[in-house]
């Protein structure tokens, strides 16, 4: 019986191709947009994650927020003793200061950092980073951000020259390096920063009361999120949770993924509304079909078809119709997402979930919106149906 119904459904679907196509358009567009959005969402998510993985994901930052005296320079050395999986800990303090070279003056953030601060990400453009010895000897050396170097040394001869840094009093610093342009990067933009050794900062620029940030580099093979959790539990034994804030790039990645996920779901939900509209299209065409085929229904009833038989015939027809629409929609969606992804230069990832979901959804739409017309067909009075012209 089911096979017969299936055969009848295909038969009537291909009898009037144009009408079938038009009535399926809603569901094709609905499924197509859901599949496109889910595919593109997946692709965007992965490309964001990929770009974040380039640098910084293996870092956890601890930022003291209160004036808790425990967050000293020495505290940096305690992390490795208490938490597994830490490669190194760098620290920084920062303050506002004015930098001058001849007539050129510039306000900038001056960072006091240990030499391993540069291990993680920043690339040097000219010269070199300062060394561990520079820090120990409290040398007056500075590494300039890209823009800062451009502004203070328009001639481009920054490395080896001297720059004055004002804070209460002016002191001369030798430029040892200039950082690469970091605008457009996902990590901190250092273009307007100046970096001096931590001890120099403490001694010659501003007395350090508390470290601004500890940057902890995770050892290879350890999960950044797990290590961050261990760091948090270690910190909770030494200070109140109001006194610090822990941020890991991994958390940021996780958050970005979930935000992209929400956005994708939201857009897909909007697109799913068009699936609903598509369902109404199916219902409409099925109602027309039932009226058109009233006489056929009458004949079938006279031949012994029960109301249930008639209902399943039309239900199968509506479902076949909408699944067919769903399949076309999936093909359409895959093609569109391929075109968009290659135009935008993303690597295309297919969301298998979206494809499975769309198929399930479109058959559900067929059953749901086919039910009423099918029930109407089943309820027809055989005498009236046979007399229908």
């Amino acid at each position: 019986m089911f096979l017969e119904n299936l055969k009848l459904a295909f038969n009537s679907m291909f009898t009037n191709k144009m009408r079938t196509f038009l009535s399926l358009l809603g569901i094709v567009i609905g499924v197509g947009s859901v599949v496109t959005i889910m595919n593109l969402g997946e692709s965007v998510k992965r490309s964001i994650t990929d770009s974040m993985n380039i640098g910084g994901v293996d870092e956890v930052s601890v930022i003291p927020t209160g004036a808790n005296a425990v967050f000293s320079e020495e505290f940096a050395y305690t992390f490795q003793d208490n938490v597994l999986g830490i490669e190194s800990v760098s620290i920084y303090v920062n303050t506002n200061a004015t930098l001058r070279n001849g007539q050129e003056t510039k306000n900038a953030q001056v960072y006091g950092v240990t030499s391993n601060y540069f291990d993680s990400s920043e690339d040097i453009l000219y010269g070199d980073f300062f060394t561990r010895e520079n820090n120990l000897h409290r040398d007056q050396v500075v590494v300039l951000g890209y823009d800062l170097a451009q502004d203070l040394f328009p001639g481009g001869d920054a490395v080896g020259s001297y720059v004055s840094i004002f804070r209460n009093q002016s002191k001369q610093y030798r430029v040892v390096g200039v950082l690469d342009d970091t605008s457009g990067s996902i990590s901190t933009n250092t273009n307007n920063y100046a970096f001096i050794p931590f001890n120099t900062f403490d001694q010659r620029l501003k007395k350090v009361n508390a470290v601004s940030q500890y940057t902890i580099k995770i050892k290879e093979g350890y999960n950044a999120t797990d290590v961050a959790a261990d760091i948090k539990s270690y910190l909770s034994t030494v200070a109140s949770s109001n006194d610090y804030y822990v941020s890991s790039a991994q958390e940021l990645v996780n958050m970005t993924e979930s935000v992209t996920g929400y956005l994708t779901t939201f857009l897909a939900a909007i697109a799913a509304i068009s699936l609903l509209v598509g369902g109404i299209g199916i219902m409409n065409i099925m109602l027309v079909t039932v009226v058109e085929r009233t006489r056929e229904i009458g004949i079938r009833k006279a031949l012994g078809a029960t109301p249930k038989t008639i209902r399943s015939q039309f239900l199968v027809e509506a479902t076949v119709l909408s699944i067919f629409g769903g399949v076309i929609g999936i093909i359409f969606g895959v093609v569109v997402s391929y075109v968009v992804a290659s135009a935008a230069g993303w690597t295309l990832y297919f969301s298998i979930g979206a494809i499975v979901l769309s198929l399930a959804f479109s058959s559900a739409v067929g059953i749901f919106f086919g039910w009423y017309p099918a029930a109407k067909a089943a309820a027809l009075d055989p005498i009236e149906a046979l007399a229908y012209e």
Partner: protein
Amino acid sequence: MIEKPVIQLIDVRRYYLVGEYLVKALDGVSLSIPRGSFTAIMGPSGSGKSTMMNLIGCLDTPTSGYITIGGEMTNGMNEEELAYLRNEKIGFVFQQFNLLGKVNALENVMTPMTYAGIPHKERRERAEEMLEKVGLKDRMKHLPSELSGGQKQRVAIARALVNDPDILLADEPTGALDSKTGSEVMGLFQELHEEGRTIVFVTHDRKLGSQCPNQVLIKDGRIVEGDVFGES
């Protein structure tokens, strides 16, 4: 032992409400049709013969009275039970053929067996056999639109007979045919009667009806004796 009649109507009434008016389409009809008989139900249009045909064909149930078809009482049956009865005991032949237009002759004949739940292979064999019997062996794969009126009616008769029903119920089966084809179809009914089929032949044409061995005349919803057509 006297065999029970295949169709029995006892004081059957069928009333309709049309707007505010009560239409007494059948008003107290009793009738017995024995197995193997060939009966014409005759009457002018509006006499109630269509209502009677619908009742005998299990397409409708009476307002009051009792109807038994092949020994089963139709009173109080729901749509599903009536459908089974139609499928099993009644074979319809209509004036307008009423073939399913999108499927070929063979599939038309197979349809009642589909509803009876007969397996595909057997359906096919029986349908082919039946079409051969009505002389359409070489037209089986044709759509109804590719068949002549007489051929269509033969397909309809094959379809009506394929589930081996108790009653062959024909409603003006020659009404849409020319006289030559009409008499051929009539001849086919005669043959089926000789084979022992119970045939109920509904017509407004007294000449056709008079060819049947038994005749029932209806007027104004009642069975009447004598001439219902107003002729002497």
